[in-house]
């Protein structure tokens, strides 16, 4: 083995050992954080915006309950510094919503799919633990309650209690399989239910005199459906703000994918935190079930505007996707051939119109 090969082997071994070492050290830290750690979002004037168990990065955005949009500028310890950008104008839905409310409950028509990436998540006040080892976490009961309440609205609901334990970095890879199976049932919207990890007051609310948990929406930025899903999240908040003010805590537009690359109108929902009671989270599910039909356009009076708004986000996303694809292709051709003029030949060849390039190989 020559010197170059030895260097490659040594590099690989160093990378492997480093990763495994970090994993052992960081694992214990991560467990401590999941018990007590949370972050507080503070704006330029020192005002607390919200709290979250979620670690945020510069550039992540948060639409607060009062629709003020903040951007993360940095993190110091448990404090996340954010700056105010603007007040977001949510979609105007009052008129169409009135139509939905006047109509009978059975007016809703559509298919909803629900699953739980972290199916072991539980509520400490009710179960004495934040996570159940057998994977039958309290969050499943929230999902079942949401499914049942939506069926009462006239919707067809596919609820999956598939287990994806343990709660590790492969959980989203495993739940991707459940999500894909559910997508084969052609749902109009796909919901991944979780609970957050914050002090109880962050999610405490009262709607129509009933104590319940708030619901936070999470949109992943690292996928092509982000624009459509963000429009969907805004629409959910707009409907909830109109029907049940205080039910939605806010919208995180943050790094990650959360399997939202699988399609538009896929969203992650946080029903309370580990410090919330199961009863309050279930109450929230009962009310949230009435929000989804109007938000997703599953009622006759909301269908057109929902399609226009969410479809508008999807169209923007598609255009961006095409632009990115073209730029990447042009960049590759430039690197590959050294001149952009080779683009025509490249596309001719890739379309099978030029010389057969089956012999082209990577020459190992």
């Amino acid at each position: 083995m020559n010197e170059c090969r030895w260097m490659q082997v040594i590099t690989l071994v160093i990378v492997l050992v480093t990763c495994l070492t970090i994993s052992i050290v960081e694992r214990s830290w991560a467990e401590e954080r999941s018990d007590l750690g949370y972050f507080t979002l503070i704006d330029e004037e020192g005002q607390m915006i919200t709290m979250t168990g979620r670690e945020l990065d510069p550039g992540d955005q948060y639409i607060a309950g009062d629709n003020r949009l903040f951007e993360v500028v940095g993190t110091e310890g448990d404090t996340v510094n954010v700056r105010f950008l603007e007040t977001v104008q949510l979609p105007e839905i009052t008129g169409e919503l009135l139509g939905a409310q006047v109509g009978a409950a059975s007016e809703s028509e559509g298919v909803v799919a629900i699953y739980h990436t972290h199916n072991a998540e539980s509520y400490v006040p009710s179960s004495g633990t934040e996570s159940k080892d057998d994977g039958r976490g309290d969050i499943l009961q929230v999902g079942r309650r949401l499914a049942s309440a939506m069926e009462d609205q006239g919707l067809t609901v596919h609820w999956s209690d598939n287990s994806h334990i343990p709660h590790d970095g492969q959980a989203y890879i495993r739940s991707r399989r459940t999500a894909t199976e559910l997508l084969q049932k052609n749902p109009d919207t796909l919901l991944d239910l979780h609970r957050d990890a914050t002090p109880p007051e962050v999610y405490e609310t009262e709607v129509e005199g009933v104590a319940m948990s708030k619901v936070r929406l999470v949109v992943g930025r690292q996928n092509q459906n982000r624009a459509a899903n963000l429009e969907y999240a805004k629409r959910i908040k707009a409907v909830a703000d109109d029907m049940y003010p205080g039910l939605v805590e806010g919208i995180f537009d943050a790094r990650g994918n959360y399997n939202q690359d699988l399609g538009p109108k896929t969203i992650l929902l946080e029903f309370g935190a580990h410090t919330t009671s199961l009863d309050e989270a279930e109450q929230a599910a009962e009310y949230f079930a009435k929000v989804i039909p109007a938000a997703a356009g599953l009622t006759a009076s909301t269908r057109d505007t929902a399609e226009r708004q969410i479809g508008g986000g999807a169209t923007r996303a598609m255009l961006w996707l095409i632009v990115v694809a073209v730029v990447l292709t042009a960049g590759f051709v430039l690197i590959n051939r050294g001149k952009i003029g080779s683009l025509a030949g490249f596309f001719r060849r890739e379309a099978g119109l030029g010389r057969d390039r089956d012999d082209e190989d990577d020459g190992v």
Partner: protein
Amino acid sequence: MPTGTALLLIVAALIYFGVGQRLLDRMRLTDTQALIAIALMIGGSFITIPLYQGRTSVNLNLGGALVPLALVVYLLVKADTAKERVRSLVAALITGGIVYGISQLTDFDPSSPSLFIDPLWLFSIVAGIVGYLSGRSRRASFIAGVLGLLAVDLVHLALALGSNMATRVVLGGAGVFDATIVAGLIATGLAEFVGETRERIEGGGEEA
């Protein structure tokens, strides 16, 4: 479904399948063979075979596990030398080790400390880097991506069976969108991109 939403889905699928086909065709597959491979992955996505039913149920998706596995075997058989086969398998083993290590480092949960990038993309990049470093080859990267991710699944399966975990394991269950295939394809694309860039820098880019 709104027109915009439908168009987005169609364009995204066309780009994914199109790029996938072009990447496969760079690995000792003809255009037609690459097209058939993609078609089999898509068609096989709808077929899941139960292998064992118990408290831990074990299932295998044709499109997400069996077809890419068959491709890997084909690439290994067609490899020029034993050294190339060993390098590819070592790359897969190392990828599996690193991905498993990262999986224990963070849960990528919105409510927990996580890395800056989604695991689906991160694991693919790991496979691409390891595959390229081990053999400077697209084939090694593809094998590292597919086998590496599958190895982590098998570790999870062994742990689940060992502890009689109440769970349903579906190897390659997301079909053509499963992490095994996504990782294999992205890893291959990365190796292609890095390899071509390196050749360009070194002044040999005319021969891809």
